[in-house]
């Protein structure tokens, strides 16, 4: 709490518009879709919406990959050979 007060913000909640706008713009730079479009036509709500859907798609991708990995790891000799191979190539 003291760190927030030390930012010298007099807003009631201690968090200013500027900070939020800065964070949102940082988020916007990470998103793959919005980066290509013109930046001034993008609203904060759209950025947040894109962020949510992007995180959901990343989750889905991780789920798919883990399914695939679990299937690949299930065959023991395949896994051992691959692990040995990866250790050797590194």
């Amino acid at each position, binding site marked *: 709490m003291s*760190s927030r007060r030390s930012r010298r913000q007099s807003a009631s909640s201690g968090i200013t518009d500027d900070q*939020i706008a800065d*964070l949102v*713009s940082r988020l916007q730079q990470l998103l793959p879709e919005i980066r290509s479009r013109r930046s001034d036509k993008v609203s904060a709500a759209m950025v947040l919406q894109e962020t949510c859907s992007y995180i959901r798609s990343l989750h889905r991708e*991780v789920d798919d990959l883990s399914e695939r990995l679990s299937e690949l*790891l299930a065959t023991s000799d395949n896994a051992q050979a691959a692990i040995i191979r*990866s250790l050797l190539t590194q």
Partner: protein
Amino acid sequence: MTAMVSDAAVGTDRRRSGRLRRNKKHRAQLVQREAEEGRSHERWRSELQHKLYSAKLMEALARLRLAGDGGGGGGGEEVRVVPTRGRTVRDAADRALAFAAKGRTRWSRAVLMTTANRVKLKFRRIRAGGGKGRLGVTGAGGGRWMGRKGKGKVSVGRLRGKGSAGVRRKVRELGSLVPGCRVEPMNVVLEEATDYIAALEMQVRTMSALAQLLSGGDSDAAPAAGHGHTSS
């Protein structure tokens, strides 16, 4: 004369020490700025992080023992018998990712605590107190970081007041997606989300490279390209 000489000597000494001190401070500032600029996206994109994470992941996956092991040694013995194998892999990957974050972010702490202490809620509350204390320090660092506005800042459309209902609803939705951020204030959620996205991207990259490696990439060139190892 001697007084002047001594004064001059003292003066130069002071200047020298002052310069040294300034250099040290300057260097420290540079290092600090580097560390702060290397937040989120840069940190999760470094090769070192990639290698660390893939090593940790392989270790965790090897420990999982998903293989048949000669007909599965007794269904009842293994405590961690899982409903679905994909879920175990996913949890292990998430845990390794949170570990790679070194507990500097809320979501990493939340992930680590959820898997480790499913029953001990009291423990989690105590840890949360300590975590908040630690975050007080990083909050100050984050404040300094956010003070450097205008460096490559992309203009966002007008916010219409930070408390506008639509934005607030979206931030809450975001908070429900990022682990451990359901009841945090807006700036915390946004900051955690940026780091979380970068980390997830690294996780996806590493896991897909691993999957490609395991599915019998023909040559060593393929996994090398996937991992981005420049040694070969």
